[in-house]
């Protein structure tokens, strides 16, 4: 790996790394507009101009300088500062400066860098070039060509990520203007990313338009649970209200992108079908009473007729808690899981991020089944129900009845979930569970990456995290799984299930960790041990 010198500090980076990334590695920020780590280098903003001390001729742009031995640059010379200042001045030459009405203000690179490197004293006496404002270019996007700094990030996104190429730069000189061909609107599923990557306020989100000034928002790192991809997101919220969701960089999962559907998952928090209160036989009531009914139902059931159904919609912690509940508190309960359920109304699929599997935790449940061979699948469940072997079912966020249909008549279903579905309507007891942005938990995505979600807002209504509900249920039944907090639940999970070995919340960090690859020999051994242990 070549070693380069930045401001006199030596740093070793892989060959081909550009100087912006190399500098970021040692905490030196090189300002830039057009450079984006997941797009090709355009080098047209000229903001990242640096002085080259050795190994080249300067000044040159850091984004197009690839690491090679002997390269030494400086970003702290007066000339670099002057260059940044002059570039800022050029960029603002024809900028409308309509920050007061611009949604980007607060997270605008022009503002940030102006404060850092600005001219402060205006020298512009000539009229500005006017361009097209407020263009409707897509279902989620508004374009203001005047604010554009012609960095071409959006153009490259359209070319290189979605391949649709609707946005282009038109004209030349200072009349260069971003735009779309008349009659052609942007209608792919990744429009929101265009608003994200736009370093200024040229492309803004229609959904977030004028909703909130960004500096009021608090960001909470989380992941998207709209499909099995599990894109890393930031939940932006203020005073217990979510205003938008933005993607977070995770090269192992989603790079810097996410789909438009995922951006809207926060709307589920307050959607019509959201379960906010417990129900007993369809009657809305308080959670304690419903919990009591659930306990009585479970205790009154004949041994061997109780089954639990793990949920691929629910977190690792919740599934683990349910699994332990079945093993410890409900002796002899059989455990099932169903694959590929509940696709919802949204059935778009592509090979970029949107997965056909709309369940965020399929791999997490599968990891559990790999560990405990006794867990039956959907076919086993259907068989058991049809045979009449199961009289009571404890279901975790899985539309079992919707799938089983009439076959399950006569089975008492205890349901834990977030939204209304076919099972909720027929269930004996329904306990409301917290949405992903309302709880701490982990999910395992389609590639086996275990990632955390963090609580951004309080659980709505009476809802509580599913692992917490299951822990209380277990306590009432005589043996709690011991999930007093999500971290403790995950710690026990990682101790018991080898696929999660050695993982902790701290170790998962912001980017998550991949599941430990299954080792056939050890796995069965461990599984059988685990299987017998509770019985002792």
């Amino acid at each position, binding site marked *: 790996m070549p070693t380069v010198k930045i401001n006199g500090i030596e740093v070793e980076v892989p060959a081909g790394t550009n100087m912006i990334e190399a500098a970021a590695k040692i905490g030196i920020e090189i300002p830039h507009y057009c450079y984006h780590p997941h797009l090709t280098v355009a080098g047209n903003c000229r903001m990242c101009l640096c002085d080259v001390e050795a190994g080249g001729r300067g000044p040159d742009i850091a984004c197009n300088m690839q690491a090679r031995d002997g390269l030494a640059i400086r970003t702290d010379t007066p000339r670099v500062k002057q260059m940044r200042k002059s570039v800022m001045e050029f960029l603002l030459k024809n900028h409308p400066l309509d920050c007061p009405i611009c949604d980007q203000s607060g997270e605008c690179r022009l503002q940030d860098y102006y404060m850092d490197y600005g001219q402060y004293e205006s020298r512009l006496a000539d009229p500005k070039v006017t361009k097209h404002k407020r263009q409707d270019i897509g279902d989620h996007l508004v374009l203001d060509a005047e604010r554009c700094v012609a960095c071409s990030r959006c153009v490259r996104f359209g070319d290189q990520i979605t391949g649709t190429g609707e946005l282009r730069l038109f004209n*030349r000189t200072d009349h260069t203007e971003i735009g*779309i*061909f008349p009659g052609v609107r942007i209608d792919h599923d990744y429009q929101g990313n265009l608003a994200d990557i736009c370093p200024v306020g040229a492309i803004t989100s229609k959904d977030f338009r004028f909703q909130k000034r960004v500096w009021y928002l608090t960001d909470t790192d989380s992941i998207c649970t709209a499909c099995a991809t599990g894109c890393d997101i930031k939940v932006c919220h203020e005073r217990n209200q979510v205003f938008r969701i933005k993607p977070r960089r995770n090269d192992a999962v989603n790079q810097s992108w996410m789909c438009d559907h995922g951006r809207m998952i926060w709307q589920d928090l307050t959607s019509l079908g959201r379960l906010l209160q417990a129900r007993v036989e369809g009657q809305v009531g308080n959670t304690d009473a419903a919990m009591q009914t659930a306990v009585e139902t479970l205790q009154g059931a004949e041994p061997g007729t109780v089954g639990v159904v793990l949920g691929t919609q629910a977190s690792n912690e919740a599934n683990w808690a349910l699994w332990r509940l079945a093993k410890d508190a409900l002796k002899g309960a059989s455990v099932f899981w169903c694959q590929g359920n509940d696709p919802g109304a949204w059935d778009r699929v592509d090979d970029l991020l949107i997965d056909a599997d709309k369940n965020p935790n399929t791999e997490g449940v599968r990891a559990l089944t790999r560990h405990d061979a006794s867990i039956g699948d959907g076919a086993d469940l259907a068989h058991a129900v049809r045979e009449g072997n199961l009289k009571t079912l404890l279901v975790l966020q899985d539309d079992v009845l919707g799938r089983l249909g009439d076959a399950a008549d006569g089975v008492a279903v205890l349901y834990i979930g977030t939204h209304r579905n076919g099972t909720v309507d027929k269930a004996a007891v329904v306990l409301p569970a917290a949405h992903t942005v309302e709880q701490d938990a982990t999910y395992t995505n389609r590639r086996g990456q275990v990632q955390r979600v963090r609580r951004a807002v309080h659980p709505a209504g009476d809802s509580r995290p599913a692992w917490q509900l299951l822990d209380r249920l277990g306590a009432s039944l005589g043996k709690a799984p011991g999930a007093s907090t999500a971290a403790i639940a995950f710690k026990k999970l990682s101790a018991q299930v080898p696929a999660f070995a050695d993982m902790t919340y701290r170790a998962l960090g912001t980017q998550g960790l991949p599941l430990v690859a299954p080792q056939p020999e050890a796995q069965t051994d461990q599984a059988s041990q685990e299987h017998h242990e509770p019985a002792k």
Partner: protein
Amino acid sequence: MAHFPTPPLDGHGPVDWSPEDQAEIAELMTHYPTKRSALLPILWMAQRKWGWLSFDVMRLVATTVDLPPSEVYSVATFYTMLKKQPTGKYLIQVCHTLSCKLAGAEQIVDHIKKKLGISEGETTPDGMFTLMRVECLASCGSAPMMQIDDDFHEQLTPDSIDAILDGLAQGQPLPSPRPEVDQWTFRSLES
């Protein structure tokens, strides 16, 4: 100053290539390793065929070279010789860059304006002439000069302008190309 007009939304309506055009396009594409490289020649073809590049024409070109229409529009707006708006039958482009300016391009423009009764960027009411100022046309040695469609007219004087424009208006254009080029070539040989 630079002026980059936005094409009017009402263009040519549905347009398509003739079979001969398609053959020519196919031949053009063999010149280049990629299909899109033929974009510029095809745009030229389209401009000759339809006079100017409307959104309809650009959409057709986009399908021809398998590009998003915005890409074609983007390229078309980059080049000033590709017309985004309809012009008169003859497009008069007078060079007004340095050498021509030193040789009196302003008077030439003024003379044409007076003669045609239009100002820059305008078309005569009979749709014959459109007058435009353009930047350097690489004929500095024979300045002042103008270009009418593809032909250069050099060493202009008010009289020669009158002759040229009158000839065009009466359908008797001067022979193309202009002989001045040859004449001025010998300058270097005489020395």
